[in-house]
């Protein structure tokens, strides 16, 4: 997980929120455990060091101004014997001369020299860390110095035991907490994941509310808000659809009238005005087609629709409109043929018809005069379907195939008076059906073949 995404994940947030307090509690409790348990324990060891020093002090003898330590071998043995540690001592007379023991046992640093009783400190001796006690003892009316030191094995052992016994479990608990949070968040968010999967799988046109029965209590407000939004989107879609239906009606009727009168005018007009009126008629026809195309485009991209998706049989769909195409093909002396196999898709029959009509219109318009146009449909793959229109005209150069899908784009050198909307509409309708649009060549690399492939029926 990167730092950036960590900032935004619930898991990262929770972990960061938890990490500091847990670490703090762990540190405080470790320090507390350490000192609460270690101090009394080390104090006991320190006390026995001082006791040993005091005992040595008892053994100082002075005769004739010379101080000696009267320590029988057996007693020294006892002093030096310890289960874990090596014990060292040194006795120095008031002049500082070592009179017994190990001369090298270090004295405390000057600042810590004892004034009257004893001082405890850490030092190093023979390469070992040692704990030492320095005491002042009266000798011959003056003050002798006794140093007792022992290695720190006992103490280290104690520290280890305390750490193992109390700090380690706490540390484990803390780590466990973090691990539980790490996985717990993922587990706890599983319903959310399922929810987002469900939303992700929806088609863009599915605006039905999300079911609330299987979502956990905590996500109900989110789902509720989403459903509210879906409702509003659907309502606005419906309004748009209503507007389009009304606009279609308001536009088409006068256009039909205009076409009718323009045609009458062409026939009735004197020779001098006929070519102008023919232009008026052609413009009316073009305008009618453009209005139809714009309405189809708006309807295809509106997302919602007036009718729920239905099962559409593509062969029947093609056969239903073939009549209209054949007459146009006859006008252009084109051999229009069909290779149709039954297959069904889920969709909007009217939009699919519009898409197909656009493809056939293009093939008849831009294909070769006296050429061939073939409409094919059938199953593809496991559950897919396809419909395609092929002509043997000049085709669309590979470099132009992307651009011809743009609205109002017309490839350079394109004849006729098209609006450049046809393929954009087909593209939009294909997308609305979860289908893909592919532009290629006909057989032998000649002509143009446009294929719509549907995922599943």
């Amino acid at each position, binding site marked *: 997980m990167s730092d950036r995404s960590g900032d935004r994940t619930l898991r990262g947030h929770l972990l960061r929120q938890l990490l500091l307090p847990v670490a703090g509690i762990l540190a405080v409790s470790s320090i507390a455990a350490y000192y609460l348990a270690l101090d009394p324990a080390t104090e006991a060891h320190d006390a026995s060091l001082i006791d040993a020093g005091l005992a040595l002090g008892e053994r100082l003898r002075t005769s004739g101004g010379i101080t000696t330590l009267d320590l029988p071998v057996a007693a020294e043995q006892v002093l030096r014997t310890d289960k874990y540690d090596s014990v060292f001592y040194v006795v120095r007379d008031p002049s500082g001369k070592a009179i017994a023991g190990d001369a090298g046992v270090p004295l405390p640093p000057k600042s810590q020299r004892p004034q009257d009783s004893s001082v405890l400190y850490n030092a190093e001796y023979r390469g070992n860390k040692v704990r030492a006690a320095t005491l002042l003892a009266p000798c011959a009316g003056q003050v002798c110095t006794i140093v007792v030191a022992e290695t720190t094995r006992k103490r280290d052992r104690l520290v280890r035991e305390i750490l193992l016994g109390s700090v380690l479990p706490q540390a484990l608990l803390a780590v466990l907490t973090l691990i539980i949070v790490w996985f717990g968040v993922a587990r706890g968010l599983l319903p959310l994941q399922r929810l987002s999967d469900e939303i992700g799988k929806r088609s863009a046109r599915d605006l039905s509310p999300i079911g609330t029965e299987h979502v956990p209590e905590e996500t109900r407000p989110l789902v509720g808000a989403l459903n509210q939004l879906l409702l509003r989107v659907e309502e606005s879609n419906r309004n748009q659809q209503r507007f389009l*239906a009304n606009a*279609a*009606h*308001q*536009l*088409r*009727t*006068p*256009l*039909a*009238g*205009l*076409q*009718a*009168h323009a*045609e*009458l005018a062409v*026939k009735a007009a004197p020779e001098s005005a006929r070519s102008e009126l023919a232009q008026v008629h052609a413009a009316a*026809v073009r305008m*009618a087609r453009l*209005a*139809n195309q714009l*309405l189809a485009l708006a*309807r295809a991209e509106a997302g919602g629709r*007036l*009718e729920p998706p*239905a099962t559409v049989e593509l062969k029947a769909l093609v*056969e239903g409109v*073939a*009549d*209209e195409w*054949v*007459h146009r093909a*006859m006008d252009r002396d084109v*051999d*229009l*043929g*069909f*290779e*149709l196999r039954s297959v069904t898709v889920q969709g*909007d*029959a*009217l939009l699919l018809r519009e898409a197909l009509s656009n493809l056939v219109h293009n093939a008849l318009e831009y294909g070769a005069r006296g050429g061939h146009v*073939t409409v094919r449909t059938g199953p593809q793959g496991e559950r897919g379907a396809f419909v395609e229109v092929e002509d043997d005209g000049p085709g669309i150069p590979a470099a132009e195939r992307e651009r011809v899908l743009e609205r109002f784009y017309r490839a350079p050198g394109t004849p006729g008076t098209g609006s450049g909307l046809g393929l954009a509409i087909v593209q939009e309708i294909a997308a609305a059906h979860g289908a893909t649009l592919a532009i290629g060549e006909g057989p032998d690399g000649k002509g143009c073949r446009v294929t719509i492939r549907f995922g599943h029926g």
Partner: protein
Amino acid sequence: MRILIVEDDPSLASGLGRILEAEGYAVDLTSRGEQAVEAARQERFDLVILDIGLPGMDGFEALRRLRGAEHRVPVLVLTARDTVNDRVHGLDLGADDYMAKPFAMPELTARVRALIRRSQAQTGPRVTHGPLMLDTVARRAYLSGEPLELAAREWAVLEVLLGRVEKIVSKESIIQAVAGWDEELSPNAIEVYISRLRSKLERAGIKIRTVRGFGYMLEEYKAPVS
């Protein structure tokens, strides 16, 4: 031939009326569904062109009442709305054909001709197509007044095509119409009948177009320019 146009847009109504008058039909105009139902009840029309989006009683309701009164007059429905429902609804209610606005006038006049011809074929024993005439009762065919010999199967195929002039008739539907219960007809056999029909009819200017991979279409008869 008398046609009733029910359309509330005055410009389109008058345009349609004048185009159809120029084709030789007698045309009556009304803009209200109620008046259309009333007119069809009192007088005889050969075709009603009915707009769906009428003020007051809409086209669907007018159609329902026409059919409810057992009127068999052919109805061509016009609509500016584009939903499949409209189309299905209109055809369910007994419309004979359906056109979405705006439409090319030649297409409209072709459909008007086809609808009137079809309704006459259903009512009368004689079907004509240019110089061709079929007497369906006597089962005799005449071409330019001369008797025309047709085998039974050829007759059946021709009858199917004549019933749907200017429309593609699929090979399957020809087979269904021609084959008896216990017969299996191959698409190749249909091709044979079509080619025999062509050789008999083409000299009189009657054309049967092949629609590759689909079927056949009897083209509208155009008198040869002499």
